[in-house]
């Protein structure tokens, strides 16, 4: 089996992740932050260790401003629905995932004013076009750090001064980049960073979070969920302290334990080394696919402007048929269709049919890529 669906979720996970999760259940199975006994405290230490590891990875100054959520989507919902009020202006790119577009469209119905800045057909974004759309008084700019269909990287560091000059905050959706691209929330000027744990970070599903920068007034960021936090039990009002303000209910301790181990694995291997590995594979995929007749490959040609997400179509063939044959005849696992991102497919011209998406990961080998290319060629030629 050749797994090339790492943009949906990375697989396999490092063995350290599985060990950390088993260890959490065996040795530290208490409810973190709820009780004073050793199992609860040990669970709390593990969860706090995960905050520290993520703060290191993203160069976030305060581990307590890292909020755990069940996934990247919840983190994005927390930021968008917590911050935007009727009358506020928000600007996003033309390749946002539905995890951003659906909350934004719902907010639009409540009176939030949304401007979508179109991207080029390769999925890249021109900073000057973004600047034109950001009028003074804009509340928020939301940018997908990299597209999940064509892999184009958006200029988030360049967008930060544009946002701040207009008095806006910058929210970055790092679902496709955390663990695969360097992210420095301070140097890049990112006010809110939403990440998922189970893709490039190599952690288990059910993990994700929001990094809240020092420039965000948390008084203006409403919690998405309210409830028990283990703190201020005498009060029926939600506490203001971080991370408790945004973390009600029992956290996914076992998942967060796995995520902590995964982040340490990623940092030991090094983001730069991971990026080099993934891009060598992606380049081979792009070159190999481009050599096959009737195949169109999407996204930037310049590999410095993209991630390892490689989408293609074959003239006259259904993507669903290619996906089915890749698995049934060659054991190649991928994802076909619209990838929850209709805006991205409209941008590159593949709506509503979608694309076949091949995404190598940390554990993919060059032989896997060669085998996948042979498989695509055989399908196209048959």
């Amino acid at each position, binding site marked *: 089996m050749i797994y090339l669906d790492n943009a949906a979720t990375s697989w396999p996970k490092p063995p350290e992740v599985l060990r950390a999760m088993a260890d959490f259940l065996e040795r530290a199975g208490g409810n*973190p*932050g*709820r*009780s*004073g*006994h050793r199992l*609860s*405290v040990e669970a*709390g*230490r593990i*969860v*706090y260790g995960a*905050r520290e590891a993520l703060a290191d990875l993203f160069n976030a100054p305060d*581990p*307590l401003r890292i909020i755990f959520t069940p996934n990247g989507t919840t983190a994005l919902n927390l930021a968008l629905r917590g911050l935007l009020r009727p009358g506020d202006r928000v600007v996003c790119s033309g390749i946002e995932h539905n995890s951003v577009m659906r909350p934004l469209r719902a907010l639009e119905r409540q009176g939030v004013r949304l401007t979508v800045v179109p991207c080029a057909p390769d999925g890249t974004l021109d900073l000057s076009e973004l600047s034109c759309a950001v009028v003074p008084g804009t509340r928020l700019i939301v940018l997908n750090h990299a597209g999940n269909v064509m892999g184009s990287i958006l200029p988030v560091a360049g967008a930060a001064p544009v946002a701040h000059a207009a008095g806006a905050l910058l929210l970055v959706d790092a679902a496709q980049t955390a663990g695969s691209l360097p992210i420095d929330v301070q140097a890049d000027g990112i006010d809110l960073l939403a990440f998922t744990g189970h893709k490039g970070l190599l952690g288990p599903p059910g993990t994700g979070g929001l990094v809240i920068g020092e420039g965000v007034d948390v008084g203006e960021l409403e919690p998405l969920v309210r409830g028990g*936090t*283990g*703190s*201020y*039990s*005498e009060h029926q009002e939600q*506490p203001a*302290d*971080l*991370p*408790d303000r945004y973390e009600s209910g029992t956290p996914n301790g076992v998942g967060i334990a796995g995520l902590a181990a995964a982040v340490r694995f990623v940092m030991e291997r090094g983001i730069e080394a991971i990026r080099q590995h993934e891009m060598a594979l992606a380049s081979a995929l792009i070159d190999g696919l481009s050599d096959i007749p009737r195949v169109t490959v999407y996204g930037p040609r310049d590999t410095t402007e993209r991630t390892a997400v490689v989408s293609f179509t074959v003239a006259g063939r259904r993507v669903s048929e290619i996906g089915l044959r890749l698995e049934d005849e060659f054991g190649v696992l991928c994802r076909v269709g619209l990838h929850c991102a209709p805006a991205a497919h409209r941008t590159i011209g593949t709506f509503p049919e979608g694309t076949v998406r091949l995404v190598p990961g940390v554990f993919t080998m060059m032989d896997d890529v060669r085998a996948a290319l042979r498989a695509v060629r055989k399908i196209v030629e048959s």
Partner: protein
Amino acid sequence: MFGVVLFYTTSAAIRAEKLLKGAGLAVKLIPTPRQFSSDCGIALRFDWTEAERARALLNEATVDTAGTHRMG
């Protein structure tokens, strides 16, 4: 004799434990003594002879605390 530091969040308590343990202080996370707070959280117990050092370290690292008490 012991002292006990109270916190607003468990995360802050664990951060403080890590900080003071790392500096070589003998500390222990315990259920918050009911006489100091009605909260259900955890507190950090330390040796009262090290009170000044504990306070200085927590201040320096800007750990948010909800007060320090002496325990018999």
